């Protein structure tokens, strides 16, 4: 998967939020707020470019003191949420744009 190029992580009022940049319209009712570890994973996903649940899980285990199972569950839930909110796309979708 990839993070869509229009979305960036910004800090607003001490909160990590995902904002749509270069979009023509933004709905502040639907702003996605991220906690510290989710924001860290966002940056990691952005750095990896094409990421998978496995690649993020691996990095999460290296960075935080969590078991592989806990990390995988956390990453899976987060990526599913990002997918539902439409801020990520499959690498296949991107190639066929």
């Amino acid at each position: 998967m990839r993070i869509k190029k229009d979305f960036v992580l910004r800090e607003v009022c001490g909160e990590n939020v995902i904002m749509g940049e270069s979009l023509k319209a933004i709905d502040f009712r639907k702003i996605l707020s991220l906690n510290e570890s989710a924001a860290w994973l966002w940056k990691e996903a952005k750095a990896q470019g094409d990421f998978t649940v496995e690649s993020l899980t691996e990095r999460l285990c290296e960075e935080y003191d969590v078991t592989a199972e806990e990390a995988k569950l956390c990453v899976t839930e987060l990526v599913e949420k990002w997918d539902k909110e439409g801020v990520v796309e499959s690498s296949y979708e991107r190639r066929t744009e």
Partner: protein
Amino acid sequence: MNDNGFIEEALRLVQKGVTVTFPVTGQSMLPFIIGGKESVILHRPGLIDVGDVVLAWVDGNRYVVHRIIKLDYDRVTLMGDGNLTTEHCALSDIKARVTHVVSADNKKRDLYSRWRVRAAKLWYWLRPIRRYLLAIYRRL
């Protein structure tokens, strides 16, 4: 959500030409905008006029979404539809123009449709009894 930081972030985007939907709080624009339930659509101000609803930095200390009731060169007077007091700012403090109101179920309504403009004018002239009308409205 209505911290100044979020408003300023929204205004940064408005300045870039992005149309921003922003939730509003408070009852100062009743009965035209229901704070806490509805949101407003913000655009770059462009040409503004008396009767326009705008997001402005007023009295040098706060942002409001209120209606312009008087324009005197650079001096702008605003009043919330649900208020009886006025605020002032310079033309450059008008940061965005509100074009539509969006309800919780995502229905969009134009603030400047012919009948809403007439209703807003009538509402303005009803200021002497606005207090009583609002009291009735709040009980409905």
